[in-house]
């Protein structure tokens, strides 16, 4: 990691209109992403975690300009890509690629996998056709699918294999940044670790930078250098991975980590059970958005919205009382 920002997101917002009535009048806004700023450093893997509806996927799509941002800016290698005209976007798309969650709907069922991998290279005319063919075969080999699969169709593959095809497609244009949106969530345990190892190996080989969007904290622990937690469209905590998992400081992060079931019958985790559901992003609570479910909320939290403050080096938290919720794992007995 050389520490220079590859991507800089500045006060990014994405609101979706709610329309009602005969004239489809706009009656409100779903504030999916509501003012987030962060940097992605060259060579790192930044994990974006949060529960459904927190805006993590919308954020990924807005960075890619698959959604038009409502406000805010996104800089890629110093260039503002949030205001580029559609015709200028092509060069950016070459550098930022995406891996999708569902390997069953993200591959065109009528194309064989060779042409799925080749398509991007042909559109961008990066090389003569024979060279493109060679490169596609090479990529399929890299992701663990041999040349014999080249002219097969997506339905002939299992979930894990399809995800490998999706990865090969994303890497075909030699991108700098890969946005992976829940890339292993739909996969079985034994296949999931195969794909995670593959993503790690490819990162090293192609010097990639990842934005890794996931709701699974254990997966994020294994693959990310830095973790960013979102709640209702806002960043609540952002820190280095080791620091985050050893001392999470936002009560929401603590609750999230404590709720992950540990696969060891000797660990009795004092789960912090949050009451209620995530509030609607149409009318987020006043003050701190988490205060309605926060076990340590005080009066101030319902009035003043906390901003991200650096509590330790590289560890930022948006909370009036960071570190006030603690928890522990209690081993019943220690086995060697």
């Amino acid at each position, binding site marked *: 990691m050389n520490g220079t920002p590859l991507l800089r997101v500045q006060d990014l917002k994405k609101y979706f209109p709610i329309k009602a009535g005969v004239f489809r009048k706009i009656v409100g806004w779903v504030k999916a992403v509501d003012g987030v700023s962060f940097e992605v450093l060259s060579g790192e893997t930044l994990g974006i975690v949060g529960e459904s509806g927190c805006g993590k996927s919308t954020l990924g799509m807005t960075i890619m300009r698959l959604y038009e941002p409502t406000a805010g800016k996104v800089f890629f290698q110093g260039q503002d890509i949030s205001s580029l005209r559609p015709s200028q976007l092509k060069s950016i798309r070459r550098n930022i690629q995406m891996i999708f969650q569902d390997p069953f709907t993200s591959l065109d069922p009528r194309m064989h996998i060779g042409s799925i991998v080749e398509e991007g290279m042909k559109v961008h005319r990066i090389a003569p056709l024979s060279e493109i063919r060679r490169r596609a075969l090479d990529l399929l080999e890299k992701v663990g699918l041999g040349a014999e699969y080249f002219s097969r169709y997506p339905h002939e593959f299992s979930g894990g294999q399809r995800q490998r095809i999706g990865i090969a497609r994303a890497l075909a244009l030699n991108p700098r940044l890969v946005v992976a949106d829940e890339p292993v969530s739909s996969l079985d345990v034994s*296949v999931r670790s195969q794909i995670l190892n593959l993503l790690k190996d490819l990162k090293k080989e192609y010097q990639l930078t990842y934005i890794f969007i996931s709701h699974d904290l254990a997966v994020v622990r294994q693959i990310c250098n830095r973790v960013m937690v979102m709640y209702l469209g806002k960043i609540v905590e952002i820190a280095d991975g080791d620091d985050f998992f050893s001392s999470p400081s936002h009560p929401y992060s603590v609750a999230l980590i404590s709720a992950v079931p540990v696969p060891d019958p000797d660990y009795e985790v004092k789960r912090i059970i949050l009451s209620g559901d995530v509030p609607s992003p149409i009318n987020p609570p006043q003050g701190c958005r988490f205060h309605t479910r926060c076990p340590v909320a005080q009066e101030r939290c319902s009035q003043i919205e906390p901003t991200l403050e650096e509590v330790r080096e590289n560890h930022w938290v948006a909370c009036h009382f960071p570190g006030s919720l603690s928890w522990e794992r209690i081993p019943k007995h220690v086995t060697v």
Partner: protein
Amino acid sequence: MEENNLLLQVQDLKVYFYTEEKEELRAVDGVSFCLKEGETIALVGESGCGKSVTSLAILRLIDSDGKIQGGKIILRGRDLLSLSEKEMREIRGRDVSMIFQEPSSALNPVYTIGDQIMEAIILHQKLSPPQARKAAEEVLRLVGIPEAHKRLDEYPHELSGGMKQRAMIAMALSCHPKVLIADEPTTSLDVTIQAQILELIEKLQRQLNMGVILITHDLGVVAGMAERVVIMYAGKVVEEGNRWDIFHNPSHPYTWGLLHSIPRLDVKQEKLAIIPGVVPDPLNFPSGCRFRNRCPLEDEMCLTEPKRFEIENQHYVYCHHYSQIEILKTRGFNQ
């Protein structure tokens, strides 16, 4: 361990499906386990291992392209497979009930929550509609739904995912079943909601002394909830034991691989252990041990089907080479 608290026995259950080309697909092929009162047993495995089909077979809910080809399902001395459809309807919901993975598709969108819960109560407990409504409100309160009397008149779409799952649990519990089958009850929920629901199931189980069959692929959930664990692979049981047997002394190579390939939250691993290859095609399971083509301990012996070995008290494994499992500890799955 007394025999008289034995609640449900599944013996050598076989469920086969048939394709249009009349090919036989042995989704569940000789599965046995038993469940005691108040006990939680987990059926664990990856997609296609037959864990859900096993649970549907207990309720005799296998659809027309599949058939229960053998075995017994004995609920308190009665073999459910010998009952008529009419008798079976009496069992479903009253003695054995089920909660499903996807609450949004398991609830009927055109009936209110109250109507759906009352249906089972009126059918099984022969209560009048006003009494049933009261009972439904009671059970909604039991599962922790706020303003239960108001929720009775709401439709499924008006509830959040976690609330829908609670409503479904309420429906399953409305007649105080002896056996609750929970098929991936928290897979579609967020982790903070998952924690709420698991806590709820445990609490209700203690209150009602139910036997719970938990079907899941999440070994974290298993470690926290299940007393006994049945690991399934390709339609067969590969290992069975109490949770300490399984987590501390896994003896089938598949169990070992599964446990080691879970990403852990407490330690950062440089590289995750993997099980090479993919689950075999169910139309084409390998002969003999079905795991053999992915197994590092494979040899000629594996061409014959492994028998059940008892390693220690009620810890069973179906593997010829279980005594060599130590080898995996040094070299893993890399040959």
